[in-house]
């Protein structure tokens, strides 16, 4: 199966080579961090989680979003999604791989990570998160391998795969819920300690993830013979519309309770995000861009004529993805620490090394997606093998 | 042979990578060929018999670590009945204060780099 990914034209190999270079450079910078310590990042005693953990959180959402194509197809027989469920599952695999890598680069003593399994601690949500994500990865690998192999043979997938696929549906919801629990159970961090955090995570995952998937579908349709037809694209667009509406609604709910109640320990975090706190306005421009992008995306998605126009839909997907990436990949994690439990504001911004390592990890995910999409499409004959 | 060029290059790279430890050591030159740890204390017995310690001191130290840190038990009764404080720094290094001539001898020979010394302060070696 993978041998299909070893054949391609010069553009394909150029892209693979580029990814390898980015990964290698990221790895070299990681070696610097491994030798020096995490002090090479912008993290400090007050803001102890930053870019790495934020990307982890964002990518768990992307991984969970595969359920948005799996559920309609396998549970409700929505045949139109037949050609893209595997693409969603591969994206989920790549996302979980990136999640694991981001955790590895964020640990102070990464070689001791096996301690989490040697000394299991069921009291800790982090322990359950490793179980949930590990299980999700195994599920999706089993499903993907069997579905692709069946397509290659031209037979329907084996019967025993159906319960496993159905299991992956609640499992997908659970991975992002457990990740949300990591944050929402902490009495020390009022910004995160809200019951709506898990629903917010899911809503942003189910809009941002499918938006990325749709962009990948558009890309494949442009550069290969892959064409799923109009219906799955429109359906995905509708799913993104509803999910993004929920996401924006939830954010507005948060803003209302914080601002109307006026309780400083809740309000201060939102002030930091949108107007700045104690002179620190690091995230303010980013959050306003995210909000404007969210409004633009909803405006485009609500107008049927706009949503039906695939070029506009593609642009809306870009705005959705960027808006949610800023909200989750920057806003959510850092803000939990600003202000700190003593009311002090400490500035955090990723350093150059931190950013290069992050880009390197994203390149790993891109490589996984590239290799498995190439294999899948080659098997289907949609791309020259 | 089809693709002879690619195969031969691949084989050469593979053999070079796999045999790396051998030719790297040969090139380095200062690899110890034997270990001769020196005892500098006048104490006649360790916390356990020498043969046991040679093979199991790492397990003993791990056990001590868990007993002291996690269980709060700090006194070890040796087989001989003698009591010791379970401590690398205060007990072991009290007698074996010559780390470079004792601990490092076997560790360098075996190519082992225990991370104990990242935290546990090495005693200043007294010139004897």
């Amino acid at each position: 199966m993978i041998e299909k990914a070893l054949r391609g034209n010069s553009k394909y190999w150029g892209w693979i080579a580029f990814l390898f270079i980015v990964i290698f450079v990221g790895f070299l910078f990681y070696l610097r961090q491994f030798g020096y310590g995490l002090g090479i990042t912008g993290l400090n005693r007050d803001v102890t989680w930053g870019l790495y953990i934020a990307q982890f959180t964002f990518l768990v959402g992307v991984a969970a979003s595969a359920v948005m194509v799996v559920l309609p197809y396998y549970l409700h027989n929505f045949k139109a999604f037949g050609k893209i469920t595997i693409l969603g599952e591969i994206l989920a695999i790549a996302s979980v791989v990136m999640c694991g890598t981001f955790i590895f680069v964020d640990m102070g003593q990464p070689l001791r990570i096996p301690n989490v399994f040697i000394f299991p601690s069921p009291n800790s949500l982090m322990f359950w998160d490793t179980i949930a994500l590990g299980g999700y990865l195994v599920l999706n690998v089993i499903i993907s391998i069997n579905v692709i192999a069946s397509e290659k043979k031209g037979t329907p997938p084996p019967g025993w795969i159906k319960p496993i696929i159905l299991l992956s549906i609640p499992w997908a919801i659970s991975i992002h819920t457990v990740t949300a629990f990591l944050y929402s159970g902490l009495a020390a961090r009022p910004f995160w300690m809200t019951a709506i955090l898990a629903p917010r995570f899911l809503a942003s995952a189910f809009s941002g993830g499918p938006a990325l998937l749709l962009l990948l579908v558009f890309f494949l349709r442009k550069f290969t013979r892959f064409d799923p037809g109009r219906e799955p694209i429109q359906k995905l667009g509708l799913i993104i519309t509803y999910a993004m509406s929920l996401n924006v609604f939830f954010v507005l709910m948060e803003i209302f309770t914080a601002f109307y109640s006026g309780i400083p320990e809740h309000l201060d975090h939102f002030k930091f995000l949108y107007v700045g706190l104690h002179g620190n306005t690091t995230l303010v421009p980013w959050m306003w861009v995210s909000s404007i992008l969210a409004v633009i995306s909803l405006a485009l998605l609500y107008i049927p004529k706009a949503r039906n126009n695939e070029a506009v839909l593609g642009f809306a997907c870009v705005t959705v993805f960027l808006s949610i990436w800023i909200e989750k990949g920057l806003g959510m994690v850092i803000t939990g620490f600003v202000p700190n439990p003593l009311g002090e504001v400490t500035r955090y911004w990723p350093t150059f090394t931190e950013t290069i390592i992050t880009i390197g990890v994203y390149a790993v995910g891109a490589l996984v997606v590239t290799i498995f999409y190439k294999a899948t499409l080659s098997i289907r004959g949609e791309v020259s093998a | 042979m089809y693709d002879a060029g690619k195969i031969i290059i691949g084989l050469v790279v593979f053999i070079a990578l796999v045999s790396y430890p051998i030719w790297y050591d040969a090139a380095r030159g200062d690899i110890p060929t034997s270990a001769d740890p020196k005892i500098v204390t006048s104490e006649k017995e360790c916390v356990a018999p020498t043969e046991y310690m040679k093979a199991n001191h790492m397990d003993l130290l791990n056990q001590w670590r868990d007993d002291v840190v996690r269980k709060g038990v700090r006194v070890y009764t040796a087989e001989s009945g003698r009591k010791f404080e379970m401590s690398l720094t205060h007990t072991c290094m009290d007698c074996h204060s010559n780390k470079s001539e004792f601990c490092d001898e076997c560790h360098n020979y075996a190519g082992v780099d225990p991370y104990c010394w990242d935290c546990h302060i090495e005693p200043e070696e007294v010139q004897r």
Partner: protein
Amino acid sequence: MTIDKRKFIKTAGLASLAGLAGKNILGQDVSEVIEPGSFDRLSGLQSPLKAERWAMAVDIKKCQKQHDCTKCIDACHHLHNVPEFDNPKDEIKWIWKEPFEHAFHEQENKFQKTDLIHSTPLLFCNHCDNPPCVSVCPTRATWKREDGIVMMDWHRCIGCRYCMAGCPYGSRSFNWRDPRPFIKDQQQDFPTRMRGVVEKCTFCDERLAMGLLPACVEACDVGALVFGDLEDAESDIRKLLNDNFSIRRKPGLGTQPEVYYIIS
């Protein structure tokens, strides 16, 4: 020359005593005389301080009597090889002073008693009865002992910093880089830590095991720090708490911190 019997016996007695004593000193193994340390440690370890529930009381008024006094902080940080970094973002502190409005951030009161507003209470790990840091640790590298102390195992910590996110008091620090070059006057008795692990005050468990009080308590020469067993009704700390108004940090969170601040 005459000498009377009494004088002779006195002189002979003293002389033989001196002779015997001198023989003892010279006859003994030299190392035993020069190294009483190891002998004391073992006997110390065999009479540790024990309690059902350790707790600390800080008398803010007494503490503030001496301006800019940092004896407790210096003692703790010296004894435990706590590094001092030039870059504030790498800061590690086990015990420190914080302005009242930050230490008791949940008690906002612009018109609080003047000497309190200007005070800088001492902060450390609260060794909570219900510690959120312990709940979240994925390897149990931090756990709560039966006697109430929240311990750290620096061998097991993977440096995930979840405990730091979970602590509502900002008590924990992380080794963002190798601390050794930044330790002033390295103390041989206590290990340093390596980069990549979280550290905090452990109520000097290694000193309690030797029958000694925590270093900060001993270092304070105005008696502002009182350390003892809350379950012992006769202990100094219980008496102090019975007779004085005290507050704890963020009591509403349900963590049950065991550091009490006496407001007199």
